[in-house]
């Protein structure tokens, strides 16, 4: 077990390091923060002074090493714009994002999985066709189109719900819906195909031949097997809890991490962007770890294999 855990942990660390490095390099290659922060008309001396102050005059690899060293001592840098701790800025925004993503995840799971499973058990029925159609509809329409569509219908035409801001709980409805529809479609489709696959397996025939009630065959024999692929998708969705709302937050002017990321990127606020990316990578890695552990719990064959 120890060896299994160490391998996974090391792999997680390497992933995070790769993300940090990638972000670091790309951000510095894609524009000069001094120019962006100070504007195009400032004198050269101010630009030089800004660069010196933030250490941007050093060679790239020295900046990189300094950055890595800082991270390991828990120093995630200071926002160039607000002069506040970058991590502090990011953490302040997390609750707002979670207010959208957690209800959205909840909707995806409680609608997507049952819809997919039901469709699989009633193949070729009207419900099945409806689910397939809705699923395709749900995940082929990009969220910005979906968001605007919902705004058009519920805010502009019907005038039922606000189209932006974070003042009341009604403000959260449209962004949450926008975010969940695609995921519901994906989960419905995956659950359907996982369930169809499992229902065709010989052991399901065995369970039926044993005289088990149909519902028991589905609940006790089929679902535990279909859970493995479904958990993979849900795990991926958990991984996007922090960062899954970039587009939606921008559309609905929701003051979450996503909006902060967009603003910080356009400002070349390096420390903040890096902080957010680090956070995203960490949640992804953690959710992957959880999924891996769940696999072993769900499927005894994988328990044996994961050690190989």
């Amino acid at each position, binding site marked *: 077990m120890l060896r299994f855990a160490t391998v996974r942990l090391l792999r997680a660390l390497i992933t995070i390091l790769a993300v940090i490095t990638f972000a670091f390099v790309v951000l510095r290659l894609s524009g000069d923060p001094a120019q962006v922060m100070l504007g195009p008309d400032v004198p050269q001396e101010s630009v030089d002074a800004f660069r010196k102050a933030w250490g941007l005059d050093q060679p790239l690899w020295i900046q990189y090493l300094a950055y890595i060293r800082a991270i390991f001592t828990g120093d995630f840098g200071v926002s160039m714009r607000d002069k506040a701790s970058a991590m502090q800025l990011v953490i302040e925004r997390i609750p707002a994002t979670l207010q959208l993503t957690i209800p959205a995840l909840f909707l995806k799971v409680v609608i997507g999985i049952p819809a997919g499973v039901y469709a699989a058990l009633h193949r070729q029925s009207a419900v099945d066709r409806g689910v397939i159609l809705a699923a395709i509809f749900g995940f082929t329409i990009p969220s910005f189109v979906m968001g605007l569509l919902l705004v058009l219908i519920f805010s502009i035409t019907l005038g039922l719900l606000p189209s932006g801001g974070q003042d009341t709980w009604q403000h959260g409805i449209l962004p949450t819906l926008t975010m969940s529809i695609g995921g519901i479609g994906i989960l419905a489709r995956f659950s359907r195909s996982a369930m169809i696959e499992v229902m065709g397996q*010989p*052991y399901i025939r065995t369970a039926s*031949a044993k*005289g088990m009630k149909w519902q028991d065959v589905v609940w006790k*024999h089929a679902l535990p*097997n279909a859970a493995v692929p479904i958990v993979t998708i849900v795990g991926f969705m958990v991984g996007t809890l922090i960062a899954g709302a970039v587009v939606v937050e921008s559309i609905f002017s929701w003051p979450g991490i996503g909006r902060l990321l967009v603003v910080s990127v356009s400002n070349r606020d390096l420390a903040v962007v890096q902080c957010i990316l680090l956070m995203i990578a960490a949640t992804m890695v953690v959710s992957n770890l959880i999924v891996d552990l769940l696999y072993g719990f769900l499927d*005894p064959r994988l328990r044996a294999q994961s050690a190989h």
Partner: protein
Amino acid sequence: MVSNLVELRGLKVAFDGVQVLHGIDLEIGRGEAIGLVGESGCGKSVTWLAALGLLPGKATVTGSVRVDGQEILGQPRNVLEGVRGKRIAMIFQDPSSSLNPVLRVGRQITEALAIHRGLHGQAAKAEALRLLDMVGIPDARRRLELFPHEFSGGQCQRVMIAMALAGEPDLLVADEPTTALDATIQAQILDLLIGLRSETGMAMIFISHDLGAVSQVCERACVMYAGQVVEQGSIQALFDNPRHPYTRGLFDAIPRIDGPRQRLVPIPGTVPHPSDLPEGCAFSPRCSHVAIDCRTRRPELTAMDDGRRLSCHHPLGHHPEAHHPVDSTRPVEPRALEALS
């Protein structure tokens, strides 16, 4: 006359409109062992999956299946569920994938005990242990807690048999139970099935392409071809004097392990696709004794004087000359067929 345990009458199955089973009639008496023999696609497995309602939804099943005189075909699901496992249990060809990979073996057995015998908790566990012991799984107490992938193929089949015995069925349908197993393990499983049958007195349907295995286990056999029974009778009668050319061909095609080494005698051609069955007798294009009427008239399964049933216009044996079979080396001219019609 003693009533039969199970009776199939005119059982027909079609998948998406393609008929794969063309009316099967079969009676199984109490405690009797019957072999269903034939090559892949002949419908021997489909017959029993259809009888127990285990085929996928796209299959259309018609005819009659009676258990102790009670019709079960087309009955509501709960009637079938009462028959499956309790009256008729079934084991399958690929034991390793026929057990649920994520459930402990013990639980898969106790489940059946709960359904059919109302046993729970320690009582169920004790009975499961007894069953595993009965099918020859050593160290059963520890192995109840294991998962199917921790068992070998032969042991998985033993577990399947234990599970099938849990409902104390009147009939065990064994669908190619030894095909996927190694030779020495095959012999063990055959031996086990024979022993269990004499111990419990249950009837058995033994589905296999292996005539050797069938003749170890059964008293009677049905030979099937292209979704029909072509010959049915006691093992002894079938082997000593096969009368349908397909039965005969099947015996001749098996390589022998004793006696002089000879060139094998294959049946020419291939099994027809169900959607493309020849007219008349389905075996006629491959038959060495084909006559003109075989190509136009489909033979019916008819009772013979010696107790067997046969579906052939020109059976072998007895008085072959009387039928004037067409010279097998010369195929029937299409023109001759036209002239006939």
